[in-house]
């Protein structure tokens, strides 16, 4: 049986590596994406993965000061996705 603190450290390392790898894979789709919709989707996925990375950093350092940052990133990610999609759909963001 692994002791609890060691298990938490191992789980944190595995989570950091997995989410960072997910970020890299989404970035590959952003680069090779054959169409505009795929690139917007890859950017949205990267924003969500960035929120996950910030939460993991907050757990690893034991602080709570990163939650405002992740909240702002969540809001900006949604607004930017809608802005990209509207720009493609209507040719303008604010009509």
């Amino acid at each position, binding site marked *: 049986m692994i002791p609890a603190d060691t298990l*938490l450290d191992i789980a944190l390392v595995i989570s950091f590596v997995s989410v960072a790898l997910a970020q890299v894979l989404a970035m590959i789709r952003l680069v090779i994406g054959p169409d*505009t*919709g795929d690139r917007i*989707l890859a950017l*949205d996925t990267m924003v969500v993965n960035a929120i996950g990375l910030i939460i993991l950093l907050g757990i690893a350092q034991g602080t709570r000061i990163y939650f405002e940052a992740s909240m702002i990133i969540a809001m900006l990610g949604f607004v930017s996705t809608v802005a990209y999609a509207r720009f493609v*759909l209507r040719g303008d963001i604010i009509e």
Partner: protein
Amino acid sequence: MMFETLATYVIALCLLVGAIFSLVGSIGLLKFKDSMTRLHAPTKVGTVGVGSLLAASMLYSYVFGGGWSIHELLIMAFLFVTAPISANFIAKVVIHKKTCDTPPPPAKDETWSTLDVPEEDRDVSVANEIEAS
């Protein structure tokens, strides 16, 4: 002591589930062939992945930081509300760019899911309208 040990195991399990779901979502985003099928993979990242990471963070701040923190619930609610809206916008972009296959023509009518009724069913639909009104 016993409670903290048990909570640490639960936190580690939530962290692993969230991280693996994030990785699976991004692998699906990279591996699928079609734009519309690619659209469904990152919803796993948005809901289970980040939701489980936020649950782990909430439990961690309750056990080791002293007291609940509500910020995680706020982020979770915001992500769960906005994910379908942005997915709908991306699907509209894909349809607009015509990179997905249009569905095959229907068997009887001319178009899907409209009020376009074929000739032989006209009296049935009129009877239904009279019955409904």
